[in-house]
């Protein structure tokens, strides 16, 4: 049996197990509604609550470890960096601002722009304006091949002599010291990749972007920061990440050859790159002082499409990571297995019941669900409540949005894992 077939079988088995957990949860709900054993439902509910509480303590314990055992990194001393910017039909003004911010940023660097088959004439005009700048190299693809191919091209043909590779999005605007802060951890032998604090350029555009801004703060400065304390960040953001150059060269072919359920993977390039670094046994860290800004979708439709794409990639990469995390990062293995994969599916019965009761019974929603979610929000996002209180309204909205809309988007993503629509940028 070929390695590819074997992997496909493993993927199918993993997805089937996830579907099975989902079905089991619904079966327990049906049993409850049909008057079945009360003890079974109670046990199920208590296990759910218990895991939720344990996970909350776990995140805070990691944050505490990171706080009392702060990592100290060697200072940047002029090492060379290659900044890779894959571009596909980006808004020209943003693209220009992004390249200029990279040029202005501190550090010994050159910029590699890969135009991934853009058809927008504005993009071509912007890129041609840099043709006389020796610090910027531009390469064009005849057709759109996807971000993975663009990164592969840059690493393969344009990287020689660099110490570090930095990948950013074509709308990333970075602070002046972002690059050097980002690569400093890579001077430590055990660290293979790092990622920074990505904030929103358009956070104040409307209610949705304000909500997403708060969610980003929480995801980065709570979850990612917590994982960073043990060097086990599971996703280096595509908007601002750095890798040791020799590691990037070593893993570049795996980036473009990945398959899931016998289909070539084209999304979640950032998660896969991170996984490939973790698989080699290196630590991956979050650097909160490396700050960059990027745009987020400002309409609900665009945001849901983006999340659908991210969540498909999330499931695909979470399953892939289980194959090596158990020996490389056992703590992260347990987190991914139980919290990321099993819990969202095992809780569908409970969430469905809450959801249905909230619709048919507004009193239940206002007196039961709302106070519970607010309590959950305050506890799980306590660092945000304490350090960034202005973001409380946004995270409050996101908590409801997440439970009542994004949860179902996540389930839809799981059941359409093979779909490749919306899979390019």
């Amino acid at each position, binding site marked *: 049996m070929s390695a590819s077939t074997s992997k496909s079988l493993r993927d199918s088995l993993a997805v089937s197990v996830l579907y099975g957990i989902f079905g089991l949860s619904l079966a327990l709900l049906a049993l409850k509604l049909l008057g079945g054993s009360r003890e079974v439902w109670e046990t199920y509910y208590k296990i759910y609550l218990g895991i939720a509480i344990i996970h909350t303590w776990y995140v805070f314990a990691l944050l505490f470890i990171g706080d009392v055992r702060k990592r100290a990194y060697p200072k940047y001393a002029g090492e060379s960096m290659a900044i890779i910017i894959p571009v596909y039909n980006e808004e020209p003004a943003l693209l220009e601002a992004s390249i200029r911010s990279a040029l202005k940023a501190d550090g010994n660097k050159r910029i590699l722009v890969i135009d991934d088959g853009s058809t927008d004439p504005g993009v071509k005009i912007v890129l041609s304006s840099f043709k006389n700048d020796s610090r910027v190299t531009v390469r064009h693809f005849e057709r759109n091949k996807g971000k993975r191919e663009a990164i592969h091209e840059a690493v393969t043909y344009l990287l020689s002599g660099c110490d570090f590779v930095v990948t950013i999005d074509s709308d990333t605007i970075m602070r002046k010291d972002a690059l050097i802060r980002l690569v400093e951890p890579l001077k430590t032998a055990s660290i293979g990749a790092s990622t920074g604090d990505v904030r929103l350029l358009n956070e104040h555009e409307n209610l949705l972007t304000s909500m997403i801004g708060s969610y980003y703060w929480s995801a980065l400065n709570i979850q990612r920061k917590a994982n960073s304390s043990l060097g086990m960040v599971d996703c280096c953001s595509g908007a601002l990440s750095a890798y040791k150059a020799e590691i990037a060269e070593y893993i570049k072919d795996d980036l473009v050859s990945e398959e899931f359920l016998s289909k070539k993977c084209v999304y979640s390039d950032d998660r896969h790159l991170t996984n490939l670094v973790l698989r080699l046994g290196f630590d991956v860290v979050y650097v909160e002082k490396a700050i960059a800004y990027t745009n987020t979708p400002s309409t609900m439709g665009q945001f849901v499409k983006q999340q659908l794409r991210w969540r498909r990639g999330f499931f695909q990469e979470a399953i892939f990571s289980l194959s090596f995390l158990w020996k490389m990062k056992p703590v992260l293995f347990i987190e991914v297995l139980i919290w990321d994969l099993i819990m969202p599916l095992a809780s569908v019965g409970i969430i469905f019941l809450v959801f249905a009761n909230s619709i048919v019974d507004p*009193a239940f929603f206002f007196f039961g669900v709302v106070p519970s979610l607010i309590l959950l929000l305050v506890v799980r996002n306590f660092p945000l409540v304490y350090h960034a209180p202005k973001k409380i309204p946004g995270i409050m909205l996101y908590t409801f949005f997440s439970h009542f809309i994004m949860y179902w988007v996540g389930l839809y993503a799981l059941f359409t894992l093979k779909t490749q629509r919306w899979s390019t940028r």
Partner: protein
Amino acid sequence: MKGSKTAFWALALAVLSSYTYGVMTVGTQNASYAYAQAISDNSEISGSARFIEVAADEQHNQALQNIIDRLKLRANEERTLCTISENDALAIRDSGNVVEQRLELDNGEMARVLVSDDLTETDIRNLDPSSNCIRLNIFERIILTLSSRVS
């Protein structure tokens, strides 16, 4: 700066501990409510009083709480019928806005249940016709209604 960090972690510990305690307590409480409800689903008819009248002022809340406590105790210990004694009902009557709901029991007998007029038709339909107990989740709702009125 160090003091601020200590304050943060002290507060975080307090919040986490309270949350854990609260979830464990409420979770257990809900479980016993559900248990009493399941008992009432399978109960038979009792000859004792079978109605509840909901009070609307603070002094009656304690009486309601006593009833719930007794229901839970009985459900847990005796695993038999959970009923409300006439004395309990007398202790909390004289309340004002109540409606009476008559339920036909399995044996043809009529049970009389007085419930708050804030409850919906759905709530009333949820009263178990095979028992002479108000389901405890309805009780929780009554308590909520009372709390909001009193405050």
